[in-house]
Structure formats: structure tokens, C-alpha cells
């Protein structure tokens, strides 16, 4: 569904990827509008993470084109680094820089990539850390924080770059149940502030409350996409019905 009149912020067209014989991304066409929150769901091995990681070229693609804000993704090099600075990424395993404090984690990008002064970057970092509720942990090292706190720092680290779009690759899959909510709250807040987001997740609750659109993937292909209400109450494909039947039963 192409519901916007202005150009999409993220556009994938005819994207194909193989791992040897395995066809992990099958002819993906996807456009994401400014301010849109797209949740990608599907069984494991469906290619959700690969798709998410391909958007900032942490995974290369074999065919097709991906563009962000009208710019095609460059090959390796400075141009790619520049483009990545505009795309925030949150990983399943947090990936906070283990040898740097929470504050240094958040200020590294702004000072080294955006060339902000240390003072400016720290002031902004503290604001963001307060916003995600870990302001008082700024001097600690990642290993001293809980998983939920680490993931919120990771979100602050990505936000510090003032990204145009945020990618979330299963951000709550490595978390204890009680910590999932604190991370989802931050993400819902972000969605309400108008951030463009691509979220790979198994959190159907988040998909229902925050998503503008649900993209259902299976076997490397986009099988179905719809607004969350339609998708959850009236899935069209057998694959989606089967998947929802399995996860919503319990």
C-alpha cells in the first residue's frame, strides 16, 4: 500500500540475496514513508533480520536497489559511513562498546563522526540518557548494567546521531520478560514523536499499539502487509494464518 504522496524515506526494490544455495531475500519491494513505523514479523529464518541489516548495508545484497532519502546505498567507503550516520541501528545483543562508559558510548559518534564539541555531545547525551531513563548510570560500564538498561543506552546512542530512520533488529529478544516493557516503552515514545522506524520483533503487543503497518515475511519473501488491526484480525495468506495461530494461542 502506497499511502503517501511524497517520496518514501526508505525504498527497497527488487532486492535479492542468496547465502550459497539458500535464497534469503526474495524479490523484496518495500517503501517506508517519513514518520512511518513498520513492524516486520514472521517465523525465524524468514529473512527479517537480514532485511533489516541490509538497509544500512551491514548485509550486502546480490540484486536490486536500496535507497535512503532518495540516495542509493553506496558501496563501502566514506560515502557509506556518511549514510550510516543517518540510520540508527539497535541490535538484539545491544553491542554497547564494552571498553567505554555509558556516556562515552553515546558521545563517540557525535564527536568523531559529526565533529561536535565534547561539551555539546555530552550535554545532548545526558539529555537522551535521561529521556530513556538511565541518566544516573552515565559513568558506568555496559557490563555493570542490566540488559534492559543496556538496550536503552543503545537506543540513546543511536538517537545521538539524529538519525532519519531507526532500525531495530529484535531489540527485546535477548531480554528478560520484565525488562522488555521498559525498552518497548522507550520505543513507543519514539514512535509517538514521529520517528521513522523499522522494527523486527516478536512483540505483537508493540505491533498493535505502535505500528502503522505490519510486514509479514516467510522464506525470504514479503508474504503480506497490512495495517496491524487488519493483519491480526483478518490475515489473508495461509502462511500468516498458520503463524498467528501458533503464536497467539498461548
Amino acid at each position, binding site marked *: 500500500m502506497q499511502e503517501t504522496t511524497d517520496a518514501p524515506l526508505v525504498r527497497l526494490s527488487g532486492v535479492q540475496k542468496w547465502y550459497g544455495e539458500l535464497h534469503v531475500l526474495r524479490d523484496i519491494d518495500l517503501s517506508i514513508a517519513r514518520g512511518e513505523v513498520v513492524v516486520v514479523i514472521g517465523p525465524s529464518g524468514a529473512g527479517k533480520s537480514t532485511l533489516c541489516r541490509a538497509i*544500512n548495508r*551491514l548485509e550486502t545484497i546480490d540484486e536490486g536497489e536500496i535507497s535512503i532519502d532518495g540516495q542509493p546505498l553506496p558501496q*563501502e*567507503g*566514506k560515502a557509506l*559511513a*556518511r*549514510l*550510516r*550516520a*543517518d*540510520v*540508527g*541501528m539497535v*541490535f538484539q*545483543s545491544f*553491542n*554497547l*562498546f*564494552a*571498553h567505554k562508559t555509558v556516556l562515552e558510548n553515546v558521545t*563517540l*559518534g557525535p564527536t*568523531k*563522526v559529526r565533529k561536535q564539541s565534547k561539551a555539546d555531545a555530552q550535554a545532548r547525551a545526558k539529555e537522551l540518557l535521561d529521556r530513556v531513563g538511565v541518566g544516573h548510570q552515565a559513568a558506568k*560500564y555496559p*557490563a555493570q548494567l542490566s540488559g534492559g538498561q543496556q538496550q536503552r543506552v*543503545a537506543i540513546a*546512542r*543511536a538517537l545521538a*546521531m539524529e538519525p532519519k530512520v531507526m532500525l531495530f533488529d529484535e531489540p527485546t529478544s535477548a531480554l528478560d520478560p520484565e525488562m522488555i516493557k521498559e525498552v518497548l516503552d522507550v520505543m513507543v515514545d519514539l514512535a509517538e514523536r514521529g520517528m521513522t522506524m523499522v522494527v523486527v520483533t516478536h512483540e505483537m503487543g508493540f505491533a498493535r499499539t505502535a505500528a502503522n503497518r505490519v510486514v509479514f515475511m516467510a522464506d525470504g519473501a514479503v508474504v503480506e502487509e497490512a495495517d496491524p488491526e487488519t493483519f491480526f484480525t483478518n490475515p489473508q495468506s495461509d502462511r500468516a494464518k498458520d503463524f498467528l495461530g501458533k503464536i497467539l494461542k498461548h
Partner: protein
Amino acid sequence: MDVVVDNYQFIGIGFAATVLLFLISGIGALLLGTLLVAMRVGPIAVMRRAAATYVTLVRNTPLLLILVFFSLAAPKIGINFQFVKIVISTGWGDIRMTNAFAGATVGLILYTASFVCESLRSGVNAVPVGQAEAARAIGLPFGGVLSNVVLPQALRAALPPLASTLIALLKNTTVAASVLVLESAYALKQILDKTPGTVEKLWPIGVFILVFVILVELLSFASGRLERRWRVAR
């Protein structure tokens, strides 16, 4: 015992030269080794292959051959260090850092750098791939990923093998005696040559061993301290 007492200045100068040789080649090897590992794990295939070839060639060559090359063969093809003429005069005698010293230093740097490269590479492999991905995701270019995120963590992980490499370097400096660098092993040889009697010879040998044990212990102590300090940050 008298041999040691009579020659303490000579022995002292020898060990001063050993320590200088170690410090200069150690710093040089760490710098060159870091450059090599950057090439070795970098995105440019030609550089990767060049660094791998360098490591294979140099690491597999006996150190003595490398030092003899810089002492005897290199001058014949126009590589010499005649321009190096540093003599540090002390109360105990002169520490001569001239062409032999410089040639040996270059040889030790080239040789040890290959081991430094491999130690650091083991450290790089120990850094979870997600660390580099997160660094790339905030827009750092390859050099920034390496210098800000990967190498600092690799260094922590590579500390034990690096310490071993540096200890080996410290002991390898004695090979320089064979290309006429006036360092501790050279001093020992000189003293032994003019000392009559087997028992008397044991004293300078004992002192020589003792000083080396102390120097190596200093190195392992420093490495242990660093390891403990960095553990908190991991």
C-alpha cells in the same frame, strides 16, 4: 666474584645498551605491528595479502639471519646506517648507538613486528563482531572503527601474548651481540674470554642470568598490572 666487581661498569654499560635496544625496538615493533594488523584485517585485499606475506616470510626467518643481513649483506646493496652516530657518555663508559646498533634495531623491529601483528590479530578475533558492526552503524569509517572500538579491545585481549612477544624480544636482543653490538651478551662474552678458571666464569654468568630474570619479571609485572586495571572495563 672479583671478575664481577672489577667489571661492574662494563657490565652496567652492556645492560644499558640492552635496555635501550629493547625499548627502541619494542616501540618500533608495536607501531609496525599495529600497522600490519590494520592491513591484515582491513577491507583492501592487496593490503591483506601483503601483510600476510610479510608475516609469513619474516616470522619464518631466523632472527640471526635477519641481523646478519643488515650487518653484512645490506651495506653491499646500499642499505647502511653509517649516519647513526649516537654516543651517550656516562661515568661508567660510552653507550655506543652507531651503525651496528641501528642495523640490529631495524632487524629486531622487522622481526618482532610480525609477532606483534599475530598477537594483536588474535586479540582482534576475540572482539565480538557486533562491536565492529555497532561502530560501523554509527557512521565510523574503517579507520575509526579500528582505532576507537576494535583495537582498544583487541589490545586488552592480546595482552598476555603481547607480553610474551615483548619478553622474547628482550631476550632476543642478545642475538645482536653476534653482529658486534656492544650490549650485555657481548660484554659477558668479553669478560668470559679474559677470565681464567671455570668456577670464576660462573659469577658473571650468574649475574647475567639474574639481571635478565629481573628485567623479564619487571615486564610481566607491568603486563599483570595492566591486565588487572583493564579487567574492570570489560
